[in-house]
């Protein structure tokens, strides 16, 4: 076998005219097929022997029990710690919720008396508008007022405010926590070394999976939901913070030391302010990811809009679900634009005014306070200003239900036929094929691919992860995940790559496509499920459609980026040689853009996997379902094991493709 790094040897032709690099692959594939077709005698290679299954789920479960019941850190127990965290989150959450949604109550339960009403919808909308005006002028103010007006007009106000309250608590915690971790990683190399794999795992493990332990530790309710949201939204902030601090110019660091800053001054007075622009990108990420979590977090008690969507989805009330989903989108758009505009504004600050009167120094704060008080007083006189009058509420819920009804009446047969054709001819056979493969053979093949693409270490990693999936008894479900993910990714690429190729050559088209995929990415993933469910009801096909819709953006984006990055001199050279447009595209551009397109494939797979887990709600039978069931039973061990299996699949795909992309890059001399 040739050394994996020796590409010049591989490029040479072997004795029978095949590129020599292919021969080991053919041999390996041959061995695999022999095992698969004629290895029937080796039962263990097909079905992992149940006696040898590693009871990881039970171990984790036992560990969690021990943690909750017995773990002690000297002064306090683990339970005290979780209670402390819960209290820390609960207090600000209660305040925000009272302020925005419920009002301040005295007493408990139904006997409670409202001593102070919540902020009226007029006050909240006006305040948001004022913030928008402050951060981004009249246009932004109009946009955010429209978004909040939408919430009121479509009867989503109460839920939206509950959601907003949890976002308002989760975002600062996520930002500060991420920043602190980022600073620690920046400062201590060992900390970064320990943190990086954890962050990697966090980004690949499906969210559902860590909902389970959180549910177990914090119980069902908004507190647990905030914890989950923070954990989900914090890793990107941590990464961005570390990168942003690293990007601070070395001259600025020298300045800090030269003027004799202490360590604390260096961090808070020099580093963090200098990195502020990049850090704001992280803040925006935290906000968006928190909103992304809204629906998922409602599975462990978040309430609000997420709960409405979930409940609607469960009873298949498409109209109601869609409206609540759109409300989340409206909230997301408003918060996204606000945070982006504030970040941009932070760059062009106006000097602090010198005048001393309060209204002159803080005109916006004073105006907002005045408005809130006025709206509050006016609300007492005119209830319509306090609570949006139900009589004026619009609803498109029945409209959507009617549309779906109409489509189903008129096109039921067509849709059904299309669905069945795909199911019977592609999905089901593929599923059978994958389920019939011997786990031992697949594991060996993955290890072999790892060896060829990245050497011994990668081989050990891919082999070990694949083996662990089998050894924890997850093989069958993992194969269903692979089958659904695989077919969806292939479809997403078949649609996305040509769109990308077309868009890369036409600026106007690319502008449009960019707007569309940017918007698609702001939508919470659940929103994708709804139209799919509306048209195709539950099942693998529906899941596939939703996954394709979600995962198509990276396929398009990376294709375009890759093609646009191709050195224009090479294209000129090709034109000079007399290549046709088609030859230019196939012989030069796509070839050179291949590494980038492969990274796009990688991202597509990651997106597909994260969406796939969510489609458990529409009745797939894969690992996602396993996690979902574990969640409903609060079975930490079961959930984590299945969740880790998904993460393993993601890691295997990621590492193999990255190694392949790196090799292609090296071969094309792009490094």
């Amino acid at each position, binding site marked *: 076998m040739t050394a994996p790094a020796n590409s010049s040897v591989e490029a040479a032709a072997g004795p029978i005219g095949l590129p020599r690099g292919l021969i080991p692959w053919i041999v390996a594939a041959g061995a695999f097929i022999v095992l698969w077709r004629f290895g029937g005698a080796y039962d263990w290679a097909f079905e992992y022997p149940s006696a040898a299954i590693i009871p990881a789920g039970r171990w984790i479960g036992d560990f969690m029990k021990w943690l909750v019941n017995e773990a002690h850190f000297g002064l306090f127990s683990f339970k005290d710690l979780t209670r402390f965290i819960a209290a820390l989150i609960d207090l600000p959450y209660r305040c925000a919720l009272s302020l925005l949604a419920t009002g301040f109550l005295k007493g408990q339960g139904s006997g409670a008396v409202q001593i102070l009403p919540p902020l009226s919808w007029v006050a909240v909308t006006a305040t948001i508008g004022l913030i928008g005006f402050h951060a981004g002028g009249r246009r932004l103010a109009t946009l955010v007022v429209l978004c909040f007006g939408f919430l009121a007009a479509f009867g989503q106000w109460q839920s939206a405010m509950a959601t907003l309250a949890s976002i308002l608590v989760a975002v600062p915690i996520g930002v500060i926590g991420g920043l602190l971790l980022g600073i620690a990683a920046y400062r201590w190399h060992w900390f970064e070394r320990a943190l990086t794999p954890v962050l990697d795992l966090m980004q690949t493990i499906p969210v559902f999976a860590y909902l389970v332990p959180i549910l177990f530790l914090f119980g069902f309710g908004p507190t647990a939901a905030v914890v989950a949201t923070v954990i989900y939204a914090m890793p990107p902030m941590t990464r961005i913070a570390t990168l942003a601090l690293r990007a601070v110019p070395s001259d*600025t660091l020298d300045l800090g030391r030269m*003027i*004799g800053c202490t360590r604390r001054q260096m961090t808070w007075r020099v580093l963090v*302010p*200098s990195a*502020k*622009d990049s850090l704001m990108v992280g803040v925006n990420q935290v906000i968006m990811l928190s909103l992304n979590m809204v629906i998922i977090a409602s599975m462990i008690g978040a309430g609000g809009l997420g709960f409405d969507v979930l409940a609607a989805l469960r009873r298949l009330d498409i109209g109601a679900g869609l409206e609540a989903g759109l409300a989340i989108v409206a909230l997301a758009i408003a918060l996204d634009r606000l945070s982006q505009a504030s970040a941009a504004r932070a760059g062009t600050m106006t000097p602090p005014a010198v005048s001393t009167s309060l209204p002159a120094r803080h005109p916006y704060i004073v105006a907002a306070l005045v408005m809130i008080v006025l709206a509050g007083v006016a609300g007492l006189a005119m209830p319509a200003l306090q609570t949006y009058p139900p009589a004026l509420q619009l609803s498109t819920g029945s409209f959507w239900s009617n549309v779906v009804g109409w489509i189903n009446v008129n096109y039921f047969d067509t849709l059904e036929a299309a669905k069945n054709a795909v199911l019977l001819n592609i999905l089901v056979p593929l599923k059978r094929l994958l389920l019939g493969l011997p786990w031992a053979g697949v594991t060996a093949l993955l290890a072999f691919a790892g060896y060829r693409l990245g050497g011994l270490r990668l081989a050990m990693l891919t082999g070990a992860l694949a083996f662990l999936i089998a050894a924890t008894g997850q093989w069958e479900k993992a194969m269903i995940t692979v089958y659904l993910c695989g077919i969806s990714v292939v479809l997403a690429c078949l649609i996305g790559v040509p769109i990308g190729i077309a868009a890369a050559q036409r600026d106007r088209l690319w502008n449009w496509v960019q707007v569309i995929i940017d918007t698609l990415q702001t939508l919470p993933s659940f929103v994708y499920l709804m139209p799919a469910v509306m048209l195709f009801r539950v099942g693998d096909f529906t899941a596939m459609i939703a996954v394709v819709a979600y995962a198509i953006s990276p396929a398009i984006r990376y294709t375009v980026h890759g093609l646009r990055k191709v050195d224009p001199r090479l294209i000129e050279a090709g034109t000079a040689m007399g290549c046709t447009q088609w030859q230019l595209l196939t012989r030069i551009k796509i070839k050179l853009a291949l590494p980038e397109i492969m990274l796009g494939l990688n991202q597509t797979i990651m997106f597909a996997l994260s969406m796939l887990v969510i489609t458990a709600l529409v009745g797939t039978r894969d690992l996602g379902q396993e996690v979902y069931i574990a969640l409903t039973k609060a079975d930490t061990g079961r959930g984590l094991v299945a969740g880790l299996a998904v993460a393993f699949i993601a890691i295997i795909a990621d590492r193999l493709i990255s190694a392949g992309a790196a090799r292609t890059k090296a071969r094309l001399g792009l490094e």
Partner: protein
Amino acid sequence: MNDSQPKLVCRNVWKLFGSGARDFLRAREPASVTGDDLVKAGLVGAVRNVNLEVRDGEIFVIMGLSGSGKSTLVRCLSRLVEPTSGEILFNGENLLAADEARMIEIRRHQMGMVFQQFALLPHLTVLANVAFPLEVQGVKRQKREQLARRMVELVGLSGKEGVFPRELSGGQQQRVGIARSLAVEPELWFLDEPFSALDPLIRREMQDEFIRLQSVLNKTIVFITHDFDEAIRLADRIAIMKDGAVVQIGTPEDIVLAPATDYVAEFTRNVPKAKVIKAQSIMKPVQGAQPKTSVPARATVSEAVALFDGSNECVGVIDEAGNMLGQLLRTDVVDVLMRG
């Protein structure tokens, strides 16, 4: 020239980047280490066996091409970079033996630094940037703003106190950098290629400004540049660096008249000698009649040329007190001009 006690002494200073640098130096006779040895050991010799003295009140310029180790050397002098070996004495105190607290103390009160990329803090106004070193020291707001205002005025930016750095031109930004480094009234002032990021015209203007400032302030200055003309214009003495080592130290005149190596000669070739040679270097004793006009002893020959009109055969040379030291003869001046 000033003969007082040296402000800063740098003896056998080495800075090698790469792992095992200290052991590498310990294992052999430092003076005999060659570039090949370093390459073999996988080390980068950023500063190699540098010896120099900076005298009180002088402008000491370190000149060298990019990558020759100037920034590393100046950071060794302020101990922003820890030298691999050697000794650095500041007012006779061994800096490398100072602990963290003592270093903070020295940097806060006795050293200032100006950076090539300005290193202004983007979130602070001009005034707050200039006051920042004082703020870090815990100086009260009113006091530090008063001091900062004075510095802003000194560098000619009055009226821009409330502006943010990104609204200023490059030259103005560097003026802020200069004001900030002066705010703590340092005895030793480091400038690491302060004008290299500026356009040539602005650079010239800033050099004039710098000369003006120094005539008011009389600091001890270590000035880094890669521009030989800038070095000649500003320096009392120049150290020329190549590949981490100092190849020659001397006054601009010494260097231009007697380059130590071919490498140095390369730089001096195109420098008009008349702009470097001082009147005192080619003056002859006064014989007979007293010259009618005179120039200061430290003026360059090219500055004296204008005084030789039709009637003048000689121009006097006077010291700061106005005593006649000697005279310049037309033939000698023409001779210098002819040498290019």
